């Protein structure tokens, strides 16, 4: 390599961008956010003072963002859900599978529907084939029995099998259908963390079969049962590595929330043995809605008195999560604050405990 190569590479990469879009709205939004922070610090008088100086294109700085109540899809403005996050209905897309008011979505964020089926009423088994392009998949397996009591529904199971692995796992049935008819996008990810399913061969043929059984694994029939089976191929993921550089967990690079796609924007992770003596911190986005995923992965064994981890820096009260689990919390507005994960009570020590604690943030894509 020489300097000419370097200069040419930098220029070529920069040229791929073309002309910049109009960034003025984005700048105005950030100025507005900064002014709110300053006003909140300095009081009402300061707020009125700064509100008077915006002119020109940045007059939009002080114009409140248009909000309409959730549930008004006819409005042209952005809608806000009950949780304060942007909301929009997900329109029908090519490749969606629909039947009797139910929908298997063709995609959600970077997860793509590879194969799926919604059974007829009373159909007690389903088989779905697909052509795998990755071993990393997530399965949607649903069973609805609307006329059954919750207790009776729990006694009905769906046994799922991939390829030649019969009776791979089971899930119980439910009397309640999904609100709105949109079925979950995946949920069961077979195989070791970060490696995908060992029973799927890229370039081969995949088969997912589901059967309605009872708790003794015997085939059963019900006239009102509705089975659903689908395979989603997962998009890019980011690995969370432990102190030995082994993959302790993976996070999707994109998530969908209330019709909007969010991309991974920040990740901080460290051994739980370190967090016992300190904390993990990650800076939240300076503005706008975001998602924060936090918790622990790769915990070596479950204890009878598990430790809890506390996330602070979010809107509302700090939230706790048990070791070995993680969750995602929507946040309606970042302000560049520190999100902090600390180990809470009971502090039983971490001797012999393996695991990795992490905080990750996701911001909306365009």
């Amino acid at each position, binding site marked *: *390599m*020489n*300097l000419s190569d*370097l*200069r040419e*590479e*930098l*220029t070529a*990469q*920069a*040229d791929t*961008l073309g*002309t*910049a879009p*109009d*960034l*003025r709205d*984005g*700048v105005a939004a*950030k*100025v507005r956010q*900064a002014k709110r922070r300053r006003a909140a610090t300095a009081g009402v008088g300061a707020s009125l003072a700064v509100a*008077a*100086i*915006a*002119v*020109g*294109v*940045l007059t939009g700085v002080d114009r409140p963002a248009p909000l309409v109540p959730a549930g008004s899809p006819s409005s042209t403005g952005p809608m806000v859900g009950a949780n304060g996050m942007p909301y929009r209905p997900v329109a029908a897309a090519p490749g969606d599978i629909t039947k009797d008011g139910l929908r298997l979505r063709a995609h959600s964020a970077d997860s*793509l529907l590879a194969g799926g089926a919604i059974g007829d009423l009373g159909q007690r088994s389903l088989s779905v084939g697909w052509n795998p*392009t*990755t*071993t*990393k998949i997530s399965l949607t397996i649903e069973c609805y029995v609307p006329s059954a009591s919750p207790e009776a529904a729990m006694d009905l199971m769906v046994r799922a099998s991939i390829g030649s692995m019969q009776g791979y796992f089971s899930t119980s049935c439910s009397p309640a259908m999904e609100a709105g008819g949109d079925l979950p996008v995946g949920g069961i990810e077979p195989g070791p963390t970060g490696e995908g399913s060992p029973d799927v061969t890229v370039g081969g043929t995949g088969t997912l079969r589901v059967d309605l059984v009872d708790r003794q694994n015997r085939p059963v029939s019900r006239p009102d049962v509705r089975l659903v089976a689908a395979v989603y*191929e*997962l*998009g*890019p*993921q*980011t*690995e969370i590595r432990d102190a030995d550089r082994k993959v302790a967990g993976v996070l999707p*690079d994109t998530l969908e929330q209330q019709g909007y796609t969010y*991309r*991974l*924007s*920040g*990740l*901080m992770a*460290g051994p739980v043995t*370190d967090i016992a*003596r*300190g*904390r993990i*911190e990650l*800076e939240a986005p*300076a503005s706008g809605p975001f998602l924060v995923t936090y918790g622990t992965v790769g915990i070596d064994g479950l204890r009878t008195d598990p430790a809890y981890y506390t996330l602070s820096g979010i809107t509302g009260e700090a939230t706790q999560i048990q070791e070995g689990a993680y969750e995602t919390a929507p946040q309606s507005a970042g302000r560049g604050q520190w999100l902090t994960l600390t180990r809470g009570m009971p502090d039983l020590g971490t001797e012999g405990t393996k695991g990795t604690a992490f905080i*990750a943030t996701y*911001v909306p*894509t*365009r």
Partner: protein
Amino acid sequence: MTGEDTVERASFDDFVASRSTRLLRTAYLLTHDRALAEDLVQTALSKAWFAWGRIEGRPEAYVRRIMVNTYSSWWRRRWNGEEATADLPERHDCHRPDHVRVDERTDLWRALERLPKRQRAVVVLRFYEDLSEAETAEIMQCSVGTVKSQASRALAKLRIDPSLRPAADEESVR
């Protein structure tokens, strides 16, 4: 609002309109991500907006300085009370054909991605912006000696990066 205010704001709008493309390209070379680059430029411009009437000299240099320093502080971590610079999260490729774009990156682009932030910033300012060592030092708010050492280390890393082997043209770069 005074007439002077209006002129200042109008000049800011003109600046945004005329310099966004240039700033965005620099930001992209720093972040290697278009969305992050746009966010970085917007963040830098919003900070400049508050100081617009007080900027002495060339506003572009001022905005670029904010941009580089904001970029350097992003992904900052505080770990047990210590502060250090964290790299972007590791990503691994997917088997899916629509992600082959990752593979289309050149080896040199990948090698640049692996540089520490300050070194990457020096490379961009010196060899894309063609700034002098003194100008680079002013933007990065460090000494000329630091710029020299960071550039030297960056170039050395690029030359020895495994993805660039075999390097038949091991000519001197300085």
